[in-house]
């Protein structure tokens, strides 16, 4: 029993990380209707930038803070560049073109990041406590070992989700973002400054990517495979719905837990490696049963 809970918790924690990445996707999709394939690349890029800057600045009084500020600046600049060079020229193109453009962006980011910062694995230490904590001593003899950095990650994710949810629902900018996602031209015609909005959205998504990168990088080390996480976030979005922040969280948790559990319990039966495709097959099943996801909205085409 204890083992099951451990695996489950481990999976949930991995799920939190997926959720953080998926959150970035949802933000951009919710606010601009664009499916940002480059989100994973952004996570990697942000983490790489942070790590390397920390190294460069290690002799200063607070390498982490300084590097953090600089990285935030870089992500803002990145958002601005993307808006200017890619989004603006493609403003009325069909979704598929924008999607492929983000595919291009992800390649550019990958290549650029590795060219500038190198492609080794870097350890990221931002002071998150790594000692495992023992929980559930009352339920299970000996308790369950939970890495405290996972708890911190969950806490950070929770705060982010709550904050973003409030932001979208309650603030003026949040409403404007939702209007833009619905219909670019209509939003423009009521005076919403599209370009400005987009820079904001992509910046926020970039910052979310940074947070995800910090959390994930501190756990696993910053390396190229971080970028592949983007691909895993796709099933999360199918499960949760492309436009739902809550969906990104729930979807991420389900996928994370499901992956780990199936790997541990079903893996030995088929020679392992289930983790590689479990998320996708689940997504496929969802496409059959409930394509708009758990929290998504059904699309009504007006003719």
């Amino acid at each position, binding site marked *: 029993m204890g083992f099951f809970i451990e695996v489950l918790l481990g999976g949930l924690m991995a799920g939190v990380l997926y959720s953080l990445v998926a959150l970035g996707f949802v933000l951009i999709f919710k606010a601009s209707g664009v499916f940002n394939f480059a989100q994973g690349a952004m996570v990697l890029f942000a983490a790489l930038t942070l790590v390397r800057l920390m190294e460069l600045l290690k002799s200063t009084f607070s390498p982490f803070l300084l590097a953090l500020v600089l990285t935030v600046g870089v992500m803002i600049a990145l958002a601005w560049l993307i808006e200017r060079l890619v989004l603006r020229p493609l403003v009325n193109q069909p979704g598929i073109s924008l999607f492929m453009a983000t595919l*291009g962006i992800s390649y550019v980011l990958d*290549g650029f990041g590795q060219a500038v910062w190198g492609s080794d694995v870097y350890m990221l230490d931002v002071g998150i406590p790594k000692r495992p904590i023992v929980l559930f001593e009352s339920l299970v003899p000996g308790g369950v070992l939970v890495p405290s950095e996972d708890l911190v990650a969950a806490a950070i994710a929770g705060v982010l989700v709550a904050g973003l949810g409030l932001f979208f629902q309650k603030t003026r900018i949040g409403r404007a973002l939702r209007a833009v996602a619905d219909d670019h031209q209509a939003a423009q015609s009521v005076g919403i400054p599209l370009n400005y909005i987009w820079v904001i959205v992509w910046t926020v998504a970039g910052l979310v990517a940074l947070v995800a990168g910090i959390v994930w990088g501190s756990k696993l080390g910053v390396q190229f495979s971080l970028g592949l996480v983007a691909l895993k976030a*796709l099933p999360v979005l*199918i499960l949760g719905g492309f436009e739902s922040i809550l969906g990104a969280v729930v979807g991420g948790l389900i996928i994370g837990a499901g992956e780990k559990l199936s790997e541990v319990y079903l893996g030995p039966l*088929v020679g392992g490696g289930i983790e590689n495709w479990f998320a996708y097959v689940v997504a*496929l099943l969802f*496409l059959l049963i409930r394509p708009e996801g758990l929290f998504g909205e059904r699309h009504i085409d007006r003719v």
Partner: protein
Amino acid sequence: MFYREAGQFKTTYRADQAVFPIRQDQIFIVVWLAVGFFLVPLISSEYLLRAILIPFLILALAALGLNLLVGYCGQLSLGTGGFMAVGAYAAYNLCVRIPQLNPLIAFLLAGGVATLVGIGFGIPSLRIKGYYLAVATLAAQFFLDWVFSRVAWFTNNTPSGSISAPPVTLFRFTFDTPVRKYLLCLAFLVLFAAIAKNLVRGRIGRAWMATRDMDVAAEIIGIRPMYAKLSAFAISSFVIGVAGGLWAFVHLGSWEPLAFDVNRSFSILFMVIIGGLGSILGSILGAAFITVLPLMLNQLPEWLGVPISTAMISNLETMTFGSLIVFFLIVEPLGLARLWRIAKEKMRLWPFPY
């Protein structure tokens, strides 16, 4: 001036419907075929054939298949590599387990297998729109990656996971020299391009394009978008499967599952985008471009006189691909094929500017 159509009036619909209605185009295509089949093999070095032309031809075939689905029918697929793998492994298993079976027939049968697999993964997501097919095909890609590396039956229980293909023969004739391999691939490409062109200008192609442009309106005319998408998927998977068989047998000789990973899928998608969505010529141009680009980048250190590490070159390659994708999507979404058509238009008017 060289490309005048003046004086070439079509008096029958039959003449108007021809694939190459303009006389200059007709001559052009004959010349190209002659060059391809006769001149190129004579003057090309073995290296050129083996390392550049043969992969180019096979990838052009795969790009052609993908373009039918993405360009003509508007459905995004990220699983091309996986379907090529299906073709390769199916052909391999057929040849190994049925030794009397001619590999060429095996390629076609393997294409059929790829079709079935493609339909299997595609059916759930054809009922819905947008990025969902992309996710489904990505699922296929990863799942197939796993299947071919873990399930020993597919590799005929070879312990290393790396398998070698038997040579391709036709009656007594073995395609073993680079020239013969080149001609075989060229023949496949020309044949499939012709069939694709015929499909695209008829009822089926129109149904695809209608589904792509506005499936609600298509349904109202009587086209069933689901069948259109399914047929596009099926035919596309078939062509890609055959290309996979060719890639494994003719180009690689021996391979591992990694040869067909997700990067291969993206690379072929890039060929389609850069070459031109919805264009047969575009698929070929795109494949040429993407095949040649890394070679040119490899020469970059020499040209610039600056030493650049291989890692850096590979990064530059990645960045260049990404930037080109964005560039083409913004500037010329119809890709190189459209640029080619514009060039032809200019030739009609030259020396007049417009």
